[in-house]
């Protein structure tokens, strides 16, 4: 399994020491969240509140089973509400 580059939005950066991205070994969104929480326990609060994942521009708010392709552009974003 290769590492994925995970881009973080501003609010998450302090939790990883200030960098804009981290490298995580994960094949699905669920694995990604689990590994992030393992490595950075502060992530747990944000993930519980809601984090959306953009994979090559397509935004997934819930489907944690979604695969993370090896070379995909992956962004974590706030899970925004609608009105």
């Amino acid at each position, binding site marked *: 399994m290769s590492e994925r580059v995970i881009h973080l939005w501003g609010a998450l950066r302090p939790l990883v020491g200030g960098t804009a991205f981290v490298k995580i070994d994960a094949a699905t969104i669920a694995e990604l969240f689990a590994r992030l929480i393992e490595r950075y326990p502060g992530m747990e609060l944000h993930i519980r509140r809601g984090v959306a994942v953009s994979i*090559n*521009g397509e935004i997934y708010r819930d489907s944690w089973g979604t695969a993370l392709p090896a070379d995909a552009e992956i962004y974590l974003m706030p899970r925004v509400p609608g*009105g």
Partner: protein
Amino acid sequence: MSLDSMNPKLVEKKFKVIGTRVPRPDGVDKVTGRARYGADASMPGQLFGLVLRSPHAHAKILKIDTSKAEQLPGVKAIITSADLPDHTGGDRAMMDILENCMARGKALYDGHAVAAVAAIDAATARKALKLINVTYKILPHVTDVDEALKHGAPILHEYIYTEGLPERPTAYSNWNKHGEFGHGNVVAGFKEADVVVAKSYKTEQTHQGYIEPHSVLASVSSDGAAEMWVCTQGHFVYRNHCAQLLGMDANKLRVTASEIGGGFGGKTHVWAEPLALALSRKANRPVKLTMTRDEVFRCTGPTSSTSIDVKIGAKKDGTITAAWAELRYHGGCFPANWAELGAMTAFACYDLKNVKTVSKDVVVNRPKTAAYRAPSAPMAAFAVENTIDEIAKAIGMDPVDFRIMNAAKQGTKSSYGPVYGPIGIGPTLVAAKNHPHMKAPLGKNTGRGMACGFWFNFGGQTCVDLNVTPDGNVTIAQGTIDVGGSRASIAMAVAEEMGITYNQVRSIIADTSSLGHNDMTDGSRGTFSTSMAAIFAARNAIMVLRERAAKTWDIPLAEVEWKDGAAHATGAGHGNRSPLSLKEIAHKAGQTGGPIAGHSELVADNAGVSFATHIADVEVDPETGRSRITRYTVIQDAGKAMHPSYVEGQYQGGAAQGIGWALNEEYVYGKDGRLQNAGFLDYRIPVCSDLPFIDTQILEIPNPNHPYGVRGVGETSIVPPLGAVSIAVTNAIGVRQLHIPMSPPRVLKSIQTKKSE
């Protein structure tokens, strides 16, 4: 159920039903007064519920004495926060909801609920409220977002330490969250620019303004089971939240969604519902609690007021070299993330090499804010679009061409991070440029403005039950409530997929005990996700129908095809078999295996982002400062318009709300921190005579992630109006408008200031 049936990808199809203008199933009920909304249901023995509210913007609640009220004949239950113990399990977000429903030791805004009463009639309930004695210790208050950030501002919560900063602050404050988005190097970018424009903007607080006040009828019986009839955008979410807050199992609370008289995000949150349940539990009788209009304005969830700084730099040839913004929004009295959301949407329409947005979310002594149609985006778009307009003028470039030059396209890195797939901003701008509105001559004292807007749109948890009746028709039970006619669109999707007529399909909204969880009707997800679920359910039902035909004919399933509403035997040797219609198969269902149904439970994701461009002509009376919209055009990408009339309706409705927001609507707070205009007379929304016909142009760039190409449409059209109308006013009077709403006094002041220069 096959995996294929759940494939959301776009299908090439010649539509027979989709795209036509069919009558909606709830139409006759709504034009005859038969349709039942939140306040239209009653139960035997019901009590009248009423809430006592704080008249102070910020105060400690020292004592609540209900003894006299309890003795009043006809009073059956009184509750305070003591009757709502903490079942949140440490979930801060749920605790904020609970504390917002009823104050716990501290009143945080004018109108904050302090106690509630259930009595045999309205008059008794009102008398009872007067007999409840509350001792307050008034505290200094703050209602302005910038004031709340200042050193020495009154503090609402002593547990707020700003999140998102590189280092956690040592002191608590009203600043609950810091956010940042962007890429590139804005400092270098500004150095490259030939022209730089920096401006500061303010928008005042507005309310969704739905005409139906919140209303709930709650009945808890002594065995702990409960039911609730309520107007809501999401009865499953209301069930889950109410059950949790009252310490009940979700399956014991059955919530039925009434017809809803408008929501726009304002009915995605509970306020009176847990109180009605708590009262009913205490009184052991049903309780009906309907808010007054005053309460709706004071005590539900308006949107934020904001303060936004924008700086944009561009070269003489029109290329934007850098864009920066700081956005300050408030969440009312509890922490929220609205500024962060604004920071994500602010520059989303543009292709920028260097961009940075910073957000500051703040708490103030105002009601806890809720989402309002594309929440946070309209304010950010107002600030950005005006700055874009200013820069285009400074360079001497046509504002539409300037936007076209810098518009985001497929492959653009968005200002909030990810790269865009196929998107519609370019097409809407080109359509605007070529629209006859742009070439129409302008009247006297009239200015023209155009602006773009962006919104995310969502999918979410959705499930649908499809059942074939013994007489060969189809019923659909959906769990997403119908705000504007989606039942028709859902029935259309099923008719299309099954090859039958629209009249053979009927859709209803099921209660929470009849279906799995469905997310709320918000985020423009109603038609997008429910039609997807309906299509999948139809595909599953078709599989069953084919199996029944195969059984009837005693041939392999692979040799049965479903076409035009009937099963056809394909393959050699079956040529002379007449097709079996839906009606015929349904009639024999009992003998071939039982009732025929199709289900679908899914998470619809990838609703796709949407863009819109609006054009507004505004005439400004130079003597009074009053603005009048003389012409308005909405151009927006719908992916695929399932029912064009309803898509047009969403475009026009969103535009009207945006126009009201731009010209008149605002919350006016007095020095005492109290809302001064909690009624429709002084919170002035557009009326029929304020608006012209609103032209719409529906573009269809199919969403590759929906079987019919549908995109969410409900929210985006409220994003551009603040920009389009303010730019029009700016052009009419020659003074850049920086403060929304542009009410007559503000515009008159601009005119007079300009005259004196």
